[in-house]
């Protein structure tokens, strides 16, 4: 097939997609047009439910039993996919168009070996004999940098790690060198450092084979790093599209603009430049307003104009715009330079006395191994060191973040604090009392009330059969804040005000709430007993960008008001940089580095912190990063290296000392500790990973005549 540069690989025109449910037709995607050129990567970004996956599935012509293509065309290399027979489609799928999925484990067949699942692709499409297919598969596995491809070929999916499974899925998609690759949130299920490796791999391989890509993500930072052009979707429609540089530097649609105000970019600051959540909520597909879908949430809404009729895409011109279109009537009238890009400025918080003191805390789990080998060796009990030598303090009103990837022991630590587990050794002093050995059952109500938790998935922790008011009221009563019925009710209503939920939510049940609303109830409940300390375990990571921003701000505000100490557990360094006063970086149960936020984000770095910083995608094209991609996967906590835990992946590894000896804890400054064999003087010489340009160096500031008025 002759691909010329100007002929698109994929051309979607005026596509309308609907789902048909008992409640009627749900127009999931409206008026969608897109062209993908050879070798080009297109980003589709938007919040949950805006129709990203639906577009991908329509391209694959796999809409499920209740989905359908209502109108429009999807042309692949000039042929309309909507008009193809099943057999023609089958020949395209996996050969010319392939797909990479969000959850690699679910996407692989659990009862077939990885080899079988890979080899069937070339066998089906190219009719090559098995040995040739085997060689091809092995070759592809080593192309995606899987160590020991032969072993992987013989393995079943559950026998390799999550990062490796995703590499297998990628290998499977690339085996027949497709011209178009669809990626639906390919790295969302992975750890940040693993994600960085996969992202680079996909980019390298596509460049090598000239593959076009459609990259779906909710993460603007990731889109910036991977794509050439981006489509921002809102409620089933594309609201803005353009080249990465154009759109990220001069976002024109109020929604796109709002999104940037919601993400904790390096320029955001919880006091001087707080996040600015978009007000309101995403409309349900059948409750979309007349005219502009974003109207009810838009600060620039103009009655009679914006809610008159459907709004078409218009081309953006001027100020360096390239290939840039927007679905807004007023884009030319809005001057973002005059707008304050962030929320209300707040004075910094004062921190008080020590509330939490942790000294050399350890938590080991015993794992019983019943395999024959273990029986023979007599080692049936294994120790898993979930937390090793944890040392740090937190003060009143302070926010301490605990950062690390899966399995680093963050949640174990939270459990010990909450008394769900008792520590193996060490001291955990909360308001003077050592609580390390006191299980939650033995704690008195005052102790329990003063230490509360907000969980990652609010749905799991709210009781589905009680009303919101009831659940919060109980906590108030239990911790003896109020005992009089009317007063309890009064307080619950106040708490609802505090978490910005309407008062009539008092009588609602959890299933009638959205994810963000549930999380607000979770926060209200945690703060109901006037706790002196709240542990928040990934409280916003399950939420959409705009909802997460609102919940984050809410958490900060309540904390400020109550002077609560907040322990914020997260894997996301951008959120952490935004809200934490000090940070503890953990890896495989051990503290690698701890210090104030400023100290963690500037050299000297621990090599792991350095890699983490580099791995976090930042949605700002003018921020530059030094690229550090870690090889390999996280080792299992069951089998940690003997010396430095990070030794298997450390790019700065010194040699044998790192393998055999525990690194010493070096104090770079008062309160700034780094556990590494590299001498401090050496670490100090390393340059900054992230470079943020000064405001007056910024393109959009230099580009416009009037200087932006940011306070």
């Amino acid at each position, binding site marked *: 097939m002759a691909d010329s540069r100007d002929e698109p690989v994929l051309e979607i025109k005026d596509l309308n997609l609907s789902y048909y449910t008992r409640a009627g037709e749900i127009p999931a995607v409206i008026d969608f047009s897109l062209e993908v050129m050879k070798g080009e990567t297109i980003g589709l970004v938007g919040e949950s439910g805006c129709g990203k996956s639906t577009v991908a599935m329509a391209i*694959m012509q*796999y809409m499920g*039993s209740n989905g359908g293509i209502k109108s429009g065309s999807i042309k692949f290399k000039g042929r309309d996919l909507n008009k193809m027979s099943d057999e023609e489609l*089958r*020949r*395209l*799928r*996996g*050969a010319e168009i*392939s*797909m990479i*999925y969000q*959850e690699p484990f*679910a*996407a*692989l*067949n*659990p*009862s*077939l070996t990885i080899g*079988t699942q890979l080899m*069937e*692709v070339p066998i*089906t*499409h190219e009719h090559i004999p098995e040995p040739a297919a085997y060689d091809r598969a092995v070759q592809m596995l080593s192309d995606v940098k899987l160590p020991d491809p032969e072993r992987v070929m013989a393995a*079943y999916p*559950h*026998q390799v790690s999550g990062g490796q499974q995703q590499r297998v*899925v990628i290998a*499977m998609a690339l085996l027949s060198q497709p011209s178009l690759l669809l990626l639906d949130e390919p790295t969302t299920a992975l750890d940040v450092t693993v994600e960085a490796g996969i992202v680079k791999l996909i980019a390298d391989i596509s460049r090598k084979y000239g593959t076009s890509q459609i990259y779906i993500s909710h993460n603007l930072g990731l889109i910036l790093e991977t794509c050439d052009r981006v489509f921002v979707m809102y409620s089933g429609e594309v609201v803005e599209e353009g080249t990465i540089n154009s759109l990220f530097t001069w976002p024109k649609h109020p929604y796109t603009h709002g999104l940037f105000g919601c993400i904790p970019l390096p320029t955001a600051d919880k006091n001087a430049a707080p996040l600015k959540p978009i007000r309101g909520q995403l409309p349900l597909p059948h409750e979309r307003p007349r005219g502009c879908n974003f109207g009810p949430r838009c600060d620039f809404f103009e009655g009679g104009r914006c809610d008159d009729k459907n709004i078409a895409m218009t081309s953006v011109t001027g100020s360096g715009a390239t290939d840039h279109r927007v679905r807004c009537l007023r884009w030319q009238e809005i001057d973002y330079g005059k707008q304050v890009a962030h929320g209300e400025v707040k004075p910094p918080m004062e921190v008080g006395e020590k509330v939490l003191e942790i000294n050399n805390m350890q938590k080991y789990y015993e794992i019983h191994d019943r395999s*024959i080998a273990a029986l023979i060796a007599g080692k049936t009990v294994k120790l898993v060191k979930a937390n090793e030598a944890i040392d740090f303090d937190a003060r009143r009103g302070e926010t301490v973040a605990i950062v690390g990837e899966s399995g680093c022991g963050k949640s174990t630590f939270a459990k010990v604090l909450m008394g769900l587990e008792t520590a193996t050794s060490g001291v955990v002093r909360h308001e003077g009392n050592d609580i390390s050995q006191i299980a939650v059952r033995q704690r008195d109500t005052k102790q329990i009330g003063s230490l509360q938790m907000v969980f990652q998935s609010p749905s799991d922790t709210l009781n589905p059969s009680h009303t919101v008011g009831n659940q919060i009221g109980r906590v108030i009563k239990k911790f003896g804040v109020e005992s009089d019925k009317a007063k309890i009710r009064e307080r619950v209503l106040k708490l609802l005000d505090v978490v910005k939920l309407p008062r009539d939510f008092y009588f609602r049940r959890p299933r009638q709430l959205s994810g963000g609303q549930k999380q607000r109830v979770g926060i209200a409940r945690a703060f109901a007993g006037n706790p002196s300390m709240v542990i928040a375990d990934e409280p916003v990571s399950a939420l959409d960008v705009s909802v997460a921003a609102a919940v984050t701000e809410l958490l900060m505000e309540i904390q400020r008001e109550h002077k609560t100490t907040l322990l914020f557990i997260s894997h996301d360094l951008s959120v952490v940089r935004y809200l934490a006063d000090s940070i503890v970086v953990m890896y495989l149960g051990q503290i690698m580095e701890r210090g104030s936020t400023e100290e963690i984000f500037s050299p000297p770095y621990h090599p792991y912190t350095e890699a983490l910083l580099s791995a976090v995608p930042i949605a700002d094209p003018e921020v530059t990063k030094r690229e550090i991609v870690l090889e390999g996967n996280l080792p299992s906590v069951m089998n940690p290296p003997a010396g430095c835990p990070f030794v298997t992946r450390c790019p700065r590894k010194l040699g044998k000392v790192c393998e055999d000896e525990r690194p010493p804890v070096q104090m770079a400054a008062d309160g700034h500790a780094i556990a590494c064999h590299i001498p401090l003087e050496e670490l100090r010489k390393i340059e900054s990973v992230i470079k943020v340009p000064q405001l007056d160096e910024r393109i959009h500031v230099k580009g416009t005549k009037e200087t932006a008025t940011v306070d």
Partner: protein
Amino acid sequence: MLIFILKRLGFMALTMVIVSMVLFILLETNLFYKGDVATRVLGPYVSAEQREMWREQHGYNEPTYKRYFLWLGHFVTGDLGSSLRFKGPVNDILWGRLWNTAILGFWVFAIMIPVSLILGILAGMREGSKLDRTISVTSIITTSVPEFASCVIFAAIFVFGLKLLPGTSGMADGFDFKQLILPVLVLFTYDFGYVARMTRASMAEVMTTQYIRTAVLKGLPYKRVIMRHALRNALIAPFTVIMLQINWLLSGVIVVEFFFAYKGFGALLLEASLNQDIALLEACAMVAVFVAVGTQMIADIGYTYLNPRIRFS
């Protein structure tokens, strides 16, 4: 895997021993079974001396635990005692009867497994289709008709109505396949719906998984998607169910064998208990338990084998 099988075997032996103890206590002591064993065996019209002699001879005067071990020893070495009702060693009767039931069971399974699996898979492949609904409804109806009812119905149709088949299956003049048809038909009718529905549910679930979507979007032919990717995962659940059906069959045959006067294990069990034939009852019970535990073990091992996630963990 080896350790797993050994463990399973050990567990099986343990279960058998415990069951044998319970059996022994129930049937051979006076704890639950009121009345004297000797009276039961010899009848009411013998003298006390004779009874005493019989007891002495058969070791009934020994302490209970000793008797138990003796009894167990006999059992293990294959001496199952002698039957009162049939006036001969249990061994002579039991195995022949068991064989007859095995033949019956074989034919039931030989028809039921392919039919119910195929129907279940066809139904589950396209959930909600006309075929699916037909199969589902049929299987619910057939399963809800009790066996004795279908015995009567089938007999009425084929024996009295069409006069095609014999009404009894006594096999008086040697093996006759025609006499086997009705018992097989009744058991099949009762049994296939359950397995078919299990298979359907399992298949329908597999068809909605993401790995099936992956297989389709890889461009594999539909046949391969079903045969290679769906079937194996879909058959794990029905496999276990089928193994447990063997178990069920052993009790299910009682009604059918009785109704058609088929000389099988079920009828034997019934006769043994109606006639208080203790040795025979014990032997039958042990066989039944053996089959139950054995099939459970095969089901477990097979489940593990079919499911690599368990096999390699």
